[in-house]
């Protein structure tokens, strides 16, 4: 029977003991920072995977990987990339774009 990654991570996390004091003034902020940094690591992992694929494709096409990466978008493709980038920013920065501000009472607590 093989152990899945999720099971392995659960076993690891459950074996940890003791208190882990926070540094930031706000515990929720510290949690979010931990999540953001973990996502940073995962992004780097994904970038490595893309890099591996690019190198493989370049090898299959018998061209240097720099040639494969040296793409300049124009026309319809450029438009598509632009739209995709704007949508990404809108998703990630939703909180800054959302006109609904918190009521002062909730914000102060």
């Amino acid at each position, binding site marked *: 029977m*093989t*152990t*899945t*990654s999720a*099971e*392995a*991570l659960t*076993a*690891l*996390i459950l*074996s*940890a*003991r*003791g208190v*882990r*004091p*926070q*540094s*930031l*003034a706000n515990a929720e902020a*510290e949690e979010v*920072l*931990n999540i953001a*940094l*973990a996502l*940073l*690591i*995962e992004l*780097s*992992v994904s970038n*490595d*995977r893309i890099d*591996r694929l690019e190198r493989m494709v370049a090898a299959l096409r018998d061209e240097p990987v720099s040639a494969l990466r040296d793409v300049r978008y124009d026309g319809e493709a450029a438009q598509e990339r632009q739209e995709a980038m704007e949508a990404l920013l809108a998703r990630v920065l939703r909180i800054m774009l959302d006109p609904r501000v918190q009521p002062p009472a909730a914000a102060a607590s």
Partner: protein
Amino acid sequence: MKVRDLQHAVLPETSAEQRSRQEAVVALRRLLNTRVRPRNVEAFASEAQPAFIAAYGRAPQSPEEVQRAFLLSPSYRRWSAANRAAQEMIWVSVGEPIYRDLDRMRAAARALVTAPDRKGSLNLDPDYDPSAEVADVDIHLQPGGYAMDRGEDDVVAGALYECGGNVFSFGQGIGRADSKAGVVIRLLDERFGGLRPQRILDIGCSAGAASAAYAAHYPDAEVHAVDIGGAMLRYAHARAESLGVGVHFHQMDASAMTFADGSFDLVVSHNLMHEIGEAKRRAMMREARRLVRPGGVVIHQDVAIRDQPTIVHQVERDWDTHFNGEVHWSTYATADLRADMRAAGFAADEIVEHDLAAVQGFAGNRWYAISARKPA
């Protein structure tokens, strides 16, 4: 022998993706250590001290007050939170491959430690109850701690220590070819007339990186190594066998070892002093002196965090005590180790403290050591 980043049969198999994750954690830690942490002392002057004065009407004085002041600095808090997050991610990045590959690793370890042609030995003591001051804490947040032993064939604590230690060290700027044993071997050559020990004791050996390196460097020597946890020692023994060197591992407490007086030419401890309290450290040093033969050498090596220029630097270095489960970090940093060596039985003129360059590393890494030769 290289001690870090070695290939052997009890290491977990890792996928390219898992290696990417470990490398990203190394890079994150390196950035925090080289680019962010150096600003802490400056942030003390610009943020922490003014905030403390605003709150209490005077400058912070004691280490406790300096620590409280640091926590008033947003820059320090951001670094501290990020550093702890990165420390936790060390264990996540190495723990996943270990727990996934554990069945194979346990089988490999069992085969190695019971092989008829094994060179070393494993001596576990079922009656030994691992020293609680270490066993009950997740030191440097290693899940389960040094002494975690999940029963027969378990090797998790050893694998976590070795794999996590590599990710930690590379992020700390410690080179892949660095070796604390190498530093001691160089010291023996330069300061102790090239003593070639025939019997060596490594106290607090963990996964046995140094123990195996001594066995490789002195192929005629008999090397013994002591630690507290069964799973750590099983892993250490299997690792040494897989590397083809003989080391005799013992589950024993550093404060009360069962070897006869004068059994060893060289007694070393690597990075042990900062993990144990005052009483244990003194008892360990007494034991080290008892166990070395007349004319033999004792060397206790550890991290170079002693002798900080100011109290602010000292408290900044003491982050590990508060946030990294290093309960005895500051006990060690501020201890009078010369006095302890004298209390252990060495004469003042036999004791030498050393500020040692690492064998390899990019950040000007140094190690501390205190040594003494027992009169012949």
